[in-house]
């Protein structure tokens, strides 16, 4: 009963979404408060229904109800409980349901916390969100239904792909989805703004917290996904420029640009057309990512051609939403007044610079991702576009952008003095020079590129706090420095933290790329190898029986440079249901660096190939992204982002929702 109720809830959510996609938009047009208000209610109801539906599917997974085809295909009764939960979204249909759930939750959030929005804008935002809901609910129900039943349920499931049985998988796709799908709200805001003709500073102010929220989750999701690939795939790489990764990275680049341009629009009412366009572009990238990952076009263009129903459906969604919004945009763009003017050297100018480079960089990633597909679809040669392409195109575009980052917050609006800004950055500049010279000295001049990269990272990290330091000096509020620092607005701290985090990530990337060490050897028990001052001895190999796998655990004894000893135990796992092997790497964190051990198959003579990496400062890559996320959260917590709602004439100010 529960499974079928979950199925019905999903269908009912579709019916409500259809109503919600018409009624509030009409209401906003003819000025009917009830029609507009209905969107708030239906949004919350839809979210509850989809949540109920998701819970029902989860229930089926946890109880191994193999009469649900999706559960049968993607789980196993002997799976650990945690992975029964994660199996829910570890497959196409389930992850689509998660997509829809997040879509519905975001609409409900706008309905509940968006009281500061004018009724017509809110009604239109929820209406547009409902259009997206309708499209994806139809997609789920008719091409990828997670609730499809089997008349004669098998007695055992076909197991979850072992690679996906990992705690990292439990966390990163939901985060990624919250980010991805969160940008649907900014898209809805953009479309709604164009429908009501409210493309102004106030709109930018309203849309910014939602953009920030999506950005925070997307950043965290990409970071987690990268770490998951790093330790689970056993290759020791942290970013592969794989199309699936690019699919989440492109919305991030566009979203980051949007975050910055909305600032200009809010403060100066300039860049209005551009900001709306970016909001559309960002969500288009999310949709494109969904298409790439979900249509099977990446696995094989041929496979896509033989079963195109899913791919064509998403492609249709993509075309309708991007095409429709651009058409709306074309109709409205002409009616916009000229925004605020500014000189090239100004805060606005710096943000335009940021947008220019971010979107151009995004375009190169887009080309690199789509080029092989397009070439092949038109019968050309089969090629793959790998890291060298992206390093050559994306890398150079990032350098000027990163150099400019510390300047941005120091420039004043409208017209600014570059030299004055630079004078506040002398300290950062000095630190960067010292860093470059130190690295050159330590490597005897051998690592020029690494030295420059580390210099750039230091410049970013120190420069990020230049604004905070300058302002806290000028702040006349009195009291201790600490008090003065605490008195600064959250958004300023948020900016500083996010830019600092960027520097930290860059530092990690440069350090690990330049100073990573790798060793590979064929060892037998008792044998040992050396990497970066660590002596690694293979002690013994022992079999272990897990709940649904058996594994050969390889025990190592590692001796560090200071004589400290510790054990590490990577393993080879065989999952019995699919007789599939996976490599479980062993990772030891030492400071910000990591020792990474991976083993190959055990040979007949008892020897095995051991691959060891010394990942110098690698943790900084993810630590930096966490700092960025923290910066986003601090900024989000700034009360100034949330403008109070006007008090309704007849409710006597009870609804002080400003800080809800």
């Amino acid at each position: 009963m529960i499974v079928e109720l979950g199925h019905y809830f999903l269908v009912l959510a579709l019916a409500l979404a259809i109503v919600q996609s018409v009624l509030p938009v009409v209401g906003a047009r003819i000025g009917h408060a009830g029609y507009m208000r209905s969107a708030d209610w239906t949004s919350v109801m839809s979210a509850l229904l989809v949540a109920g539906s998701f819970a029902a599917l989860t229930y089926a997974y946890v109880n191994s109800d193999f009469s649900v085809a999706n559960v049968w295909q993607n789980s196993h009764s002997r799976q650990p409980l945690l992975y029964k939960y994660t199996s829910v979204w570890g497959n196409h249909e389930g992850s689509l349901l998660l997509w829809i759930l997040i879509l519905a939750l975001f609409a409900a959030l706008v309905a509940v916390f968006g009281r500061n929005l004018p009724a017509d804008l809110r009604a239109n935002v929820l209406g547009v969100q409902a259009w997206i809901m309708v499209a994806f609910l139809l997609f789920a129900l008719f091409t990828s239904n997670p609730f499809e039943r089997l008349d004669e349920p098998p007695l055992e499931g076909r197991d979850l792909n072992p690679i996906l049985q990992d705690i990292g998988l439990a966390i990163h796709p939901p985060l990624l989805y919250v980010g991805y799908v969160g940008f649907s709200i900014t898209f809805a805001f953009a479309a709604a703004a164009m429908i009501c003709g409210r493309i102004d500073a106030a709109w930018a102010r309203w849309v910014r917290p939602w953009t920030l929220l999506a950005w925070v989750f997307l950043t965290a999701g990409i970071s987690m996904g990268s770490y998951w690939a790093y330790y689970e795939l056993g290759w020791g790489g942290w970013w592969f420029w794989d199309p699936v990764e690019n699919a989440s990275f492109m919305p991030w680049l566009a979203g980051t640009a949007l975050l910055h341009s909305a600032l200009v629009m809010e403060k100066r009412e300039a860049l209005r057309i551009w900001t709306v366009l970016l909001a559309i572009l960002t969500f288009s990238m999310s949709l494109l990512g969904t298409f790439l990952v979900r249509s099977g076009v990446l696995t094989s263009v041929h496979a896509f051609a033989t079963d195109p129903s899913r791919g064509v459906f998403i492609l249709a969604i993509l075309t309708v939403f991007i095409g429709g919004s651009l058409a709306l945009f074309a109709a409205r763009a002409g009616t916009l007044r000229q925004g605020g003017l500014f000189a090239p050297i100004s805060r606005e100018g710096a943000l335009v610079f940021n947008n220019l480079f971010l979107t151009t960089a995004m375009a190169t990633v887009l080309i690199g991702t789509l080029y092989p597909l397009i070439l092949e679809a038109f019968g050309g040669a089969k090629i793959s576009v790998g890291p060298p392409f992206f390093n050559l195109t994306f890398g150079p575009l990032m350098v000027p952008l990163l150099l400019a980052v510390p300047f941005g917050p120091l420039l004043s609006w409208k017209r600014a003095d570059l030299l004055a800004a630079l004078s506040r950055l002398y300290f950062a500049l000095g630190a960067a020079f010292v860093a470059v010279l130190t690295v050159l000295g330590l490597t005897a001049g051998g690592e020029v590129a690494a030295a420059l990269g580390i210099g750039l990272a230091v410049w970013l990290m120190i420069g990020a706090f230049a604004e905070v330091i300058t302002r806290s000096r000028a702040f006349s509020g009195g009291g201790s420095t600490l008090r003065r620092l605490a008195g600064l607005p959250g958004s300023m701290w948020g900016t500083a933290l996010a830019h600092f985090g960027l520097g930290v990530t860059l530092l990690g990337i440069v350090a690990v790329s330049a100073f990573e060490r790798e060793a590979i050897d064929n060892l037998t028990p008792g044998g040992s190898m050396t990497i970066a001052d660590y002596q690694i001895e293979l002690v013994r190999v022992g079999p272990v029986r897990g709940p649904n796998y058996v594994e050969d655990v390889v025990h190592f004894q590692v001796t560090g440079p200071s004589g400290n000893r510790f054990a590490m135990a990577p393993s080879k796992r065989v999952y019995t249901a699919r007789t599939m092997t996976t490599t479980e790497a062993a990772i030891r964190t030492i400071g910000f660096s990591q020792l990474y051990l991976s083993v190959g198959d055990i040979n007949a003579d008892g020897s095995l190939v051991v691959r060891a990496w010394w990942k110098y400062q690698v943790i900084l890559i993810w630590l930096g992204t966490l700092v960025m996320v923290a910066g986003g959260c601090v900024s989000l917590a700034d009360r100034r982002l949330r403008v109070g709602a006007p008090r309704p004439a007849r409710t006597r100010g009870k609804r002080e929702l400003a800080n809800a």
Partner: protein
Amino acid sequence: MTVMFWIILALVTVIAVAVVALPILRAGQVRIEPLDHDREVYRARLGEIDHDLELGRISSAEAGAARAEAGRRLLALAGEEAGASADGPRAASGRLALVACAIAIPLISLGVYWQVGAPGQPDQPLLARLSADPSGQSIEALLRRAELRLADDPDDGRGWRVVAPVYLRLGRIDEAVHAYRNAIRTLGETPALQTDLAEALSIAAGGVITQEAHALFSAAAQADPAALKPRLFLAMAMSQAGDFADAIPAWERLIDAAPAQAEWLPLARHQLEIARGTVAGDAPGDPTAEDIEAAGQMSAEDRTQMVETMVASLADRLAEDPDNQAGWRRLIRSYMVLGRVDEARAAIATARGHSDGDAQFTAYLDAAQAELDGTAGGGDQ
């Protein structure tokens, strides 16, 4: 259960309609000036400018300019409002929309659900299915239940002993072998279990009595000289190996000891004839797959099918991995046992190409060839 399902379904649908209807019915009770929100934004902006000035984020000149800008917007809003309030929105009666929604929502949801759903199909959690009354369950379900129990308690030797023959009957030979091994591990070596394991191993090898099986049969026969089954298989092994001089007395003793109603008696007599025939140089008749079947409890069709499949898969494996000499030996012997002479010849020829000058292997191939020539010659007469 089904009634409950429909009640909840109806209830939720009614709530969904109500959720749309209520705001429409309550429309017009609260009214907010459409531009109040915008005004709030610019007021907040003015406050921020003051705050920024205090912090020294902006100079007083900049603050002045920013204030003027926000002020201009506020003024512009006031102008818009004056224009807008003249023909302020009038709430239309929402009755038409109400009726439309009250019809559309149930119609869409029930209609679509009818298409894609399975109304009333109950949940079927695995545990509940397995703990249901065993009498009504299929063998597979019972087996699955036992498997789950054994996974929790892999040292339950009696459990393993129960499931092993079931596997064998279902044709899941490898699992049967695994189960017998586990039973022996926990219950210790008994002649009965050894015999059963050896039998399963022989079936897995396509009817050929492998070295391991042979050892197990011998051990069982030694431990329990009265048991006939191990001796039957040992005799079969001798016949298979072409060791007819030893096979003849073995079969004779078996036939003497056999109870009159033993199912395998015809098989033993048949094998004895073959053995004698070969020794005497007479037409041998072929030791067929049926002979092997009679040894077990499987139906003739099942066993034939199985043996053929095993041999075919062995041949496939060798086609991919032709350097596997042990595999060639097994395949050639299987073909000879099955009487598929031409295929045996072909296999010998191919195997020669992969002998790598291994004298022992070549000698084996020569012997097999000679034997084949002998039987084929006999068959032509």
